[in-house]
């Protein structure tokens, strides 16, 4: 079946350092991937997405890399700030009878030390 998983459940980084959060996916037919940030008591917040015809996409302080050969996705956060502390989820798009669904990984907790 489909599954999206994360290698590291908790990541602690020093403020100002770069963070890398990894994600493995199993469905080689997936064509769209999303990273979400979830702060305590809130819903997931969209960070960045990437389609399968791309290897890399950059946003503001964030970069997503997609390696389709090994079915691996990563989120890089530059100059990590205390406000980046949250749970980060990768999600994989999967087609359904109508529309699509997101298959979520279990999440990585990012802790930023000041």
């Amino acid at each position, binding site marked *: 079946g489909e599954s999206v998983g994360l290698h590291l459940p908790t990541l602690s980084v020093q403020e100002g350092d770069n963070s890398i959060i990894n994600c493995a996916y199993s469905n080689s037919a997936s064509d769209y991937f999303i990273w979400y940030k979830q702060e305590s*008591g*809130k*819903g997931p*917040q969209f960070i960045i997405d990437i389609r399968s015809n791309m290897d890399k996409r950059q946003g503001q302080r964030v970069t997503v890399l997609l390696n389709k050969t090994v079915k691996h996705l990563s989120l890089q956060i530059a100059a990590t700030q205390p406000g980046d502390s949250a749970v980060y989820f990768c999600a994989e798009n999967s087609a*359904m*009878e109508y529309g699509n669904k*997101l298959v979520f*990984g*279990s999440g990585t907790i990012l802790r930023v030390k000041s």
Partner: protein
Amino acid sequence: NAGVTQTPKFRILKIGQSMTLQCTQDMNHNYMYWYRQDPGMGLKLIYYSVGAGITDKGEVPNGYNVSRSTTEDFPLRLELAAPSQTSVYFCASSLQGIQPQHFGDGTRLSIL
């Protein structure tokens, strides 16, 4: 623009009771979704809708029902609440299928 609004934010139910979780969006999105999130886990899809009058089951639909009579609203109904339905419920919407979903802040439901 309020985005996706969920009510109530918290609720405690007794086993066997029923309730409706409300979700409304003001972005004129076609697609709407209901997820549940158990502690330390990712989100699992309960039901989804691609437009008014069209709904379908997700991964974990048992014990739930939905309706979509308008573009804006997508209520989730729990019948005969069970302790296994204790969770945080998130509603989301997107304009089309392969696009980012926008989430509400969730309803925290405890069934005792």
